[in-house]
């Protein structure tokens, strides 16, 4: 009999059981997300993109219900596009954050979206706003969300420093994501990371087999034929497979 009798994949809505991490640093802002979308226990997409552009320099990190966050990002992208057409300027991050927040707040009973609005504008440089479910707006120096975030509060609290360099901030984000992905089954796959500074947008993609691994995991075999195997012959009765 099947053990997964409770895992109602048919009824479960697709959710970005996710980890999203963002932080400001001296000169800009770095943010990233994992790549796993699951329905029940089934991984529907192992390399998804949970970071949606709202404008050229403003992005939305999405967690919670996948369709809810997608519709919010579509709507806010449209509003921002109109606003920047009317004003002739790039939209401000605060405006984007408020739009996301208002959608969450006014549709509080229906939407389940926990998001981070991250961007760079000429008024205040790199900024990060947390917009959790129910429509609070929180300007933060660093923020994490999604199911995987539970596992990394300790790491983030102890390792975050004010005014990090770009390299330190990128490393902080990458480590936080990797640590969450190694323990949260609802997060995993690829890491997508962005850095925004006054020079522009820099995108880093880390495929699943290059994500940092930790004690208890085995490193991904590199090169070698498909089916290459790592491991050693061992105990009495043990053998090398393959």
């Amino acid at each position, binding site marked *: 009999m099947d053990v997964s009798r409770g895992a109602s994949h048919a009824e479960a809505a697709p959710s970005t059981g996710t980890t999203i991490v963002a932080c400001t640093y001296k000169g800009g802002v770095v943010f990233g997300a994992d790549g796993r*979308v699951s329905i029940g226990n*089934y991984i529907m997409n192992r390399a998804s*993109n949970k970071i*949606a552009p709202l404008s050229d320099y403003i992005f939305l990190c999405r967690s919670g219900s996948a369709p809810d966050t997608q519709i919010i990002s579509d709507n806010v992208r449209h509003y921002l596009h109109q606003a920047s057409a009317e004003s002739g300027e790039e939209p401000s991050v605060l405006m984007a954050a408020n739009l996301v927040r208002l959608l969450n707040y006014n549709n509080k009973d229906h939407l389940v979206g926990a998001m981070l609005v991250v961007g760079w504008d000429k008024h205040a440089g790199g900024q990060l706003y947390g917009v959790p479910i129910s429509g609070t707006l929180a300007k933060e120096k660093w923020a994490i969300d999604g199911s995987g975030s539970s596992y990394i509060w300790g790491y983030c609290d102890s390792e975050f420093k004010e005014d990090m360099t770009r390299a330190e901030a990128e490393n902080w984000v990458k480590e936080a994501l990797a640590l969450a992905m190694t323990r949260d089954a609802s997060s995993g796959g690829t890491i997508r990371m962005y850095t925004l500074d006054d020079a522009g947008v820099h995108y880093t993609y880390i495929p699943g*087999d290059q994500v940092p691994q930790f004690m208890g*995991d*085995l490193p991904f075999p590199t090169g070698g034929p498909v089916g290459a*195997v790592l491991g050693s012959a061992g105990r009495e*009765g043990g053998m090398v497979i393959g």
Partner: protein
Amino acid sequence: MLPRPTTHSKALGPGVAGPELAVATSAVLDRPPQPIAHLPLSGAQPCAVDPAVLGDPRQHTKYPYVTGTSVMAIKYKDGVLVGCDTLGAYGTTKRYKSTQRIYRVNSKCVVAAGGEISDFQYISNLLDELTTEDYRIDDGLELTPQEVHSYLCRVMYNRRNKFDPLWNSLVVGGMQDSQPFLGMVGMVGTHYTDSHVTTGFANQLARPLFRERQQDDMSEEDALQLMYDALKVCYYRDKVSINKFQIAKVTKETGASISEPFALDMRWDYKLFAQPTKWAVGAW
């Protein structure tokens, strides 16, 4: 007069389509009670539990806590291969990454389990008692996999009858009279034998691969490659799994052995993975 629905679209408004329209008429409500298979007409509870059990202070397993995921196993020319990962998950937390979910009974038989790890450790203990007894008697006879399969089936079924199941899906693999043996026992006592056997997610993901490629006379090399592919697809698509596997091999010549944990290389280099939403901004 109910509004006439012209489509099934609820966008037309409430009360136009949907379950609200299924209002029982008097013809339905005043019908004499029809007998239903699982409910007595008297209106009593369908299942009577021994009152002595209700006062029992022991906890009955209602849901699993630390769980293992899929197990998959195939027969091949020389014997059987049984494979699974080494994760003991705590809900959706990947908590214990070195749990051994395959138990070597003797040189002819291994048992692997998905489901509650503590119950599997209890089962391993029971089997250990049986093999210790065999060792003590020292008559050259060992438990065969078919005997282990029958024994476990009885254990699981009897626990189920007490409403206290061992929350496992068990795979029994080995050599029975020089022939490969492969069987499954579920948590309610359902059991069968077959040329390939899967539990959990592998039912959906690995079984199609086995149906297509498994042959009872396949070579060990082909069998291993098939097992790797099955383990890989379960890792790709089961979120509660890790890239750390063990395979047990039981053959007549080499007896029963369980490999050290190993990782498989996975494909993450698809071009589309790098920028999946380039032409579909806002999608995922």
